[in-house]
C-alpha cells in the first residue's frame, strides 16, 4: 500500500505536468476557419460577406458537378472578410490553404503566394484540360496584370467594370447631359449642388470609391500606364502631374460635393443614398447591379439608372473607352493537396460557373457564356455591352501598390472627400507608404 502511495506521489507531478501541457496545447489550438484539404473532400474557403460563390458551388455540386462532388465532396467554410488577407497569410504559412478559396484581396500578397508556390498555375492545368478558351481574354489579362505574371493563377468568378452610375431623371430635370469630360462632370456637380441636390454619393469610410477617382483621372490625363510607371519607379505620386489628379478630387471634396460627412458613409449607405434618390451620381463597380435590380432597394427605378464611363480629361493621353475593370476577388486553387479530384473540380467550375452565376444571380463573370439567359435585366445587359465594346481596360489606383500603401491610400480617401487633406498631402502619404 505504502509503495503504491509513493509511486502515486512520484507520478502525480508528471500527470499534472502532462495535463497542464495538454491544456495549454488545447488553448493554443483552433480551427481558424481554414484547414488543409482532406482526401475525399473538396474544401472551399470564402468570405462571410460573399455568398454568391459558395451558393453557385453548391448548385454545381448538385447538378453539373455531381460526379466531381461524389469523388470529392464540396466542404465549404467562411470567415469574415475584414481579416481575410491575415487569415490567408497564416493558413498559407502552415500549408493549410483550402483546395479552392477566394484569392488574397491585396495583389501584392497574391504575388507572395505565387512566388512561394502556394497557389496553382492554372494556365498549365487549363491547357491540360483543353479549357483555356473558357476564360474571357479581357478577364485573363486583368488577372495577369494584377499579379504581374504571364500565367493565370486565379479564376475570374466576377468581371466588373466601373464608372459613374447616374439618376437619369435628376440629370434631365436639371438640364444636364451625361458628362463626357471631367470639366463637364465638375460643372454638373456644381449645378446639382446649387439646386440643393448632393452630386455624388460615395463611401468615405471605405475610402476606395474616392481613390478610384484619383486613379482614373491619372489614367485619363497621363495614359493607361501612369501607375505602372510608379510601380516601376519611373515616376512618383508626388510628381506635380500626379498630385494634380488628387487635387482635382480634393476640390470636389472641399466644395462639399460628397455630402456633409462623407467619412461617416459606409458602403451600403452610399448605395442606398443613390437608390433612394438622394444623390445624382455614384461611382461604383458593376457588382452593384444586384442592388440596382432589387426593387426593394432601388426606389428610383431600374430604368432610371444610367451609366457613363469615367470621363475624358481634355488634352489627356487616356481615353474613356479604356474602361476601369476588375475581377472582384477572384478564386484560387492551392498547390498543396491538388489531386486529380481537385483538377476535375477545376474543370467543372470553369465549364459551368459562368452560366450558372449569370442565370441565378445576374452576376457577370470572366468565363465564356454558352447559354445566355433570355430575360437578363437591362443593367446586366448594359454591363455585358460595355465589356464587349471596350478595346482595353485599366486597373485601379492601388492595384500595383504594396499592402501598406493600399491601406494608407484607402484610409485617407475620406480625407480627400471632406477636404481635410490636400492632394499633395494625400499623394505624399501614399508614396511614402509604397516606398516603405
Amino acid at each position, binding site marked *: 500500500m505504502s509503495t503504491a502511495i509513493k509511486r502515486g506521489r512520484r507520478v502525480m507531478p508528471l500527470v499534472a505536468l502532462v495535463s497542464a501541457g495538454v491544456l495549454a496545447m488545447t488553448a493554443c489550438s483552433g480551427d481558424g476557419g481554414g484547414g488543409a484539404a482532406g482526401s475525399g473532400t473538396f474544401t472551399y474557403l470564402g468570405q462571410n460577406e460573399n455568398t454568391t460563390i459558395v451558393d453557385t458551388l453548391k448548385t454545381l455540386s448538385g447538378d453539373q458537378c455531381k460526379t466531381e462532388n461524389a469523388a470529392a465532396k464540396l466542404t465549404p467554410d467562411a470567415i469574415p472578410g475584414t481579416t481575410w488577407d491575415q487569415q490567408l*497569410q497564416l493558413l*498559407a504559412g502552415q500549408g493549410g490553404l483550402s483546395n479552392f478559396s477566394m484569392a488574397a484581396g491585396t495583389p501584392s500578397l497574391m504575388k507572395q503566394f505565387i512566388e512561394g508556390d502556394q497557389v496553382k498555375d492554372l494556365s498549365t492545368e487549363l491547357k491540360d484540360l483543353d479549357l483555356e478558351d473558357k476564360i474571357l481574354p479581357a478577364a485573363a489579362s486583368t488577372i495577369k496584370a494584377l499579379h504581374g505574371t504571364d500565367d493565370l493563377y486565379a479564376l475570374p468568378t466576377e468581371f466588373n467594370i466601373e464608372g459613374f452610375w447616374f439618376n437619369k431623371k435628376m440629370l434631365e430635370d436639371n438640364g444636364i447631359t451625361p458628362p463626357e469630360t471631367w470639366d463637364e462632370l465638375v460643372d454638373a456637380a456644381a449645378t446639382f449642388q446649387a439646386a440643393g441636390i448632393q452630386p455624388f454619393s460615395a463611401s468615405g469610410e471605405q475610402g476606395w470609391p474616392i481613390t478610384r477617382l484619383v486613379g482614373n483621372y491619372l489614367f485619363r490625363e497621363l495614359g493607361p500606364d501612369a501607375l505602372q510607371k510608379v510601380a516601376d519607379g519611373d515616376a512618383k505620386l508626388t510628381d506635380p502631374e500626379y498630385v494634380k489628379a488628387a487635387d482635382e478630387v480634393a476640390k470636389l471634396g472641399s466644395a462639399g460635393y460628397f455630402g*456633409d460627412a462623407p467619412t461617416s458613409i459606409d458602403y451600403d449607405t452610399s448605395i442606398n443614398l443613390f437608390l433612394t434618390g438622394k444623390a445624382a451620381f455614384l461611382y461604383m463597380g458593376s457588382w452593384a447591379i444586384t442592388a440596382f435590380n432589387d426593387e426593394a432597394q432601388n426606389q428610383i427605378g431600374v430604368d432610371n439608372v444610367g451609366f457613363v464611363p469615367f470621363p475624358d480629361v481634355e488634352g489627356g493621353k487616356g481615353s474613356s473607352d479604356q474602361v476601369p475593370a476588375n475581377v472582384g476577388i477572384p478564386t484560387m486553387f492551392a498547390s498543396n493537396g491538388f489531386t486529380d479530384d481537385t483538377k476535375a473540380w477545376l474543370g467543372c467550375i470553369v465549364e459551368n460557373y459562368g452560366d450558372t452565376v449569370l442565370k441565378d444571380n445576374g452576376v457577370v463573370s470572366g468565363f465564356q457564356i454558352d447559354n445566355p439567359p433570355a430575360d437578363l435585366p437591362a443593367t446586366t445587359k448594359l454591363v455585358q455591352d460595355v465589356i464587349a465594346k471596350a478595346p482595353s481596360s485599366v486597373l485601379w489606383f492601388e492595384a500595383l501598390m504594396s499592402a501598406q500603401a493600399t491601406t494608407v491610400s484607402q484610409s485617407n480617401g475620406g480625407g480627400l472627400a471632406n477636404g481635410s487633406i490636400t492632394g499633395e498631402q494625400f499623394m505624399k502619404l501614399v508614396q511614402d507608404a509604397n516606398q516603405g
Partner: protein
Amino acid sequence: MNKVLGDRRAIFLLLGPALLVYTVVMLVPIFWSMGYTVFDGNALTGFTFVGLDNFAKFFGDPTALSATWFTIRYAIILTVLQVGFGYLLALLYTFRIKRASSLIRTIFFFPVVLPTVGVGLLFQKLFEAAPTTGPVNGFLNFLGAPSVDWFGYADSSFWVVILLDLWRSMGFYAILLYAGLVDIPEELLESARIDGASGWKLVRSIVLPLSLPVLLSSLIFSINGTLKVFDTIVALTNGGPGNTTTPLTLYMFQTSFSYGEYGYGSTIAMMLTILCLLVTLLIFRSTRRDLTKG
C-alpha cells in the same frame, strides 16, 4: 504548512503546472517575438537576418513616429483625466454621499462591464453626422449650430476617443481609489477636523498623502493600459481618419498581420514594451521619496 513548503516536490507540484502554462503561453511568445526583431519577412517569404535595421527603420518611419506621439499624448491625457475624475468620484463616495454611494458607484461602474465594440458603436451613433444626425449633432442643431463631422477630422476624433474611454474607465478608477480612501482611519480624519482642517485642506494634508500608494497604483495601471490601447480605437475609428488616431498597438497589428512584416511588427511591439517600462520606472522614481516618508 512549513513542512509542505519545505518539500521540493510539493513546491514543484504546486508551481509546476502554472509555471509551465505561463512559460508556454507568455514567456515563449515574448522571447520568440524578441527574436523576430532582428529578422525581416514572414512565414510565407521566409526570414532574413537584418540585425538592428528594424530599429533604425522605426526611428525613420513617419507613421511609427506619429503613432508613438499619438500613443503618448493619448496616454497622458487619458491617465490624467481618468485618474483625476476617478479620484474626485472616490472623494464624493467617501465624504459626500456615503449612504447612497453604492447606487452611484454602480451607475458609474456600469460602463466598465459593457463590451468595447458595443460602446464603440454607441459612440459612433451618438456623434453621427451622416446619413442620420446623432443626438450630439441634434443638440448642436437645436442650439442653432451646424452639425460637426466628428470622425472626419483628426482633432475631433481624438477627443471623442478620449471621451469614450473616460466614460468607460473612470468608474473603475473611482472604485479602486475608493478602496484606498475607506482604509484611511476615521479617527485620523476626525482629529484633523478637530484641529480645524476641512474641505480642500483636509484632502491635501491628510487624504492625499494617505491615499498616495493606491493613487500610484492607479497611475501605473492607467498609463500602462492607455499606452496599450487597441480595442476602443479599432471599434470607434479604426485608427482614422487616415492614421491620425492610430496608436502603436494598432500600427503593430497592421504591420505584422496586414502587411506581413513580422520582424518590423515585433520591433514596434518591443518599442512599446520599452515605453511602458520607462514610464512605469519614471512614475516609481518620481514618487519614491514621498512613499518612504509616508
